[in-house]
């Protein structure tokens, strides 16, 4: 079984490395993106199972990136996990409205993030 492919989009270098390290150790194949447009290209090119996206990125932000993934026929099935420092009710609703599958608030436990991604994948396989 090949390692599931994950795109991690995060402008904060430290958090990007943190997520990439955890997911890498947990058996994911991780592709890193430092801003939204680059992430969108990666998603379109490599068709990952999961995209872990930071909401507050310069340029194309996480919400817009999610919308574009959902609008693209070829990659709309990608699982989207949003990471954000803003997690009020309104923010969460915006995230889900954009099409996110999971919404994780900073600071988060990398282990729990990894577990959540696994569960999300299992659920997806289970449902379809």
């Amino acid at each position, binding site marked *: 079984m090949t390692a599931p492919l994950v795109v991690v989009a995060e402008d*904060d270098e*430290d*958090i990007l490395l*943190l997520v990439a*390290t*955890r997911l890498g*150790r947990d058996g994911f194949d991780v592709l890193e993106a430092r801003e939204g447009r680059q992430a969108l290209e990666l998603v379109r090119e490599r068709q990952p199972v999961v995209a872990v996206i930071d909401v507050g990125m310069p340029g194309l932000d996480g919400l817009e990136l999610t919308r574009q993934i959902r609008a693209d026929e070829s990659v709309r099935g990608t699982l989207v996990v949003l990471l954000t*420092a*803003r997690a*009020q*009710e309104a923010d969460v609703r915006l995230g889900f409205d954009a099409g996110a599958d999971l919404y994780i*608030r*900073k*600071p*988060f*436990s*990398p*282990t729990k993030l990894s577990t959540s991604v696994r569960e999300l994948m299992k659920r997806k396989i289970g449902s379809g």
Partner: protein
Amino acid sequence: MDVIRRIPRDVRPAWLFCGVGVVVTGMYFLLQRGATSQSVLYDVIGVTSALAIAAGVRLNGPASPLPWLLFALGNLLFAVADILFNIFVNPATPSSADYFYLAGYVFLVAGLVLLLVHAGGHHRVPALGEALIVTLAFALFQWVFLMAPLVRGEGSVAHRAVLTAYPAADTLLLAGLAGFFVTAAWRTVSFQLLVGSLAALLVADEVYGLDRNAYSNGSWIDGMWLLSYVLWATAALHPSMRELSEPRRVRRARVSRWRIGLLVAALMTAPTVLLVQWIRDAPLEVPAVVAAAALISGIVMLRLSGILRALERLRLRERAARGEALAAQAALAERNIRLVEADQLKDEFVALISHDLRTPLTSIMGYIELALDPDEEAPLDDEHRRYLEIVSRNSERLLHLVDNLLFVARVRAGKLVLNLNELDLGELAAEAVQAARPNAERAGLTLSLESNGPTLVEADHARLLTLLENLISNAIKFTPRDGSIDVRAFGSTSGATLEVSDTGIGLAPGEAELVFDRFFRSRNAMERQISGTGLGLFIARSIVEAHGGKISAANRDGGGTTFRIELPLRAASQPASDTAELVA
């Protein structure tokens, strides 16, 4: 000025003299009219009164005794004149009695003027103007009805001059009285007695002057003169006479009905005199009437314009004051708005900072977790592990603080939204107790839970858990080792109650209400240097109030504190907002 009034002085000599004087005056009329005994009694009253005035000066010791000594002298001259008048029995004018009488007037008028000056009345030009108007009007009467007929009458020049001098003296006396009256120092008893005495003297003089042939000893006019003596002496004996020569703070001129009436009456004098003379078919005295009318009109006009100017000044001052008040009000409102804005800005700032603190915290906490990962290829030794665990614990504390700040900012912005579901309060309490047990055990405390079966309420599970965790962690913080913390959850038909009791340091008096205020720190906590931000209980109250419930704190018998929360069975969701506190 109150100091002067407060000095207690003996009023008895004054009233004793007054009483005896009035009784003796009454006796005067019981004696045979025209008898020597009557004349002697009259003279005795006069002389005694004059001496009593001098005695009053000695008794009361006014700051300036001179006016009163002049009064005493004036009255003594009158009394001497009375004696001469009685000795010679209605002597022909001019007699020695006349000279004494006229000299008496001079001293009385001088005394009045001095009194007026001592009281600072000479600085009050408007009041003096009014006195002048009255005097001029009176002078016109005196001239037309008394003096002019005398001047043109029969007799030697000396005879006519002396007779004319009386109404002239009365005019001067009235001028003194009017000046004294309108500029007046103090409306004391002594003042009233003095005015009464002068009025009696003037009335008697006028009636006598209008028809001197009708007078004989024992007439009622004598009564008036005697009364004048007695009242004058009483005024001098009364302790309040001291104040008559004390300067008084000038009050603002008022446009009273009394003043306007006075001015109108003054203007009516000349026409009235003309009318009376015309009816009597007497000489019209045109030059005198015209001169007096012109003078009176001129002074009245000056007074009126003075009053108008004063009114205008008053109006301007009032307008300025109103403008200032409005400006102050506007400034206050402005500042209030600024304060509210500053407060909102602060809340927004806190929210922003709280968000921005989350990103570095993600790295700190995340990398600690990575470092502590047991599957790590090169595991940490125990010492480094312990260090990182300490960093981890403190990161949790920092995160808790950031969460609290954000929560408070949200509450204050009115953005606290509840996610309501039916839940069992007993279960929730068990969950909170379970979570807090490790901390309680570390602190050496017994943590117990008591509940009376399932208590179903509609509430926000996460918020209520935060609430209970806050209260329990507070209790742990404020309870010394070997103490106990009891959590109780019980329901009734009307609602549900949660209680968290501890055996801790308790609240200082008066703090039970304050502990729920934002940033409030209890005195006991400060004294023991127990750290905290003063946000936990504010958050607790916000959560309870958002559920439509009530929270209270009270000292427990035997030490410690009990926090009691009452929740309705069905949460009447209401946003807990404090944003209005500054506006109100």
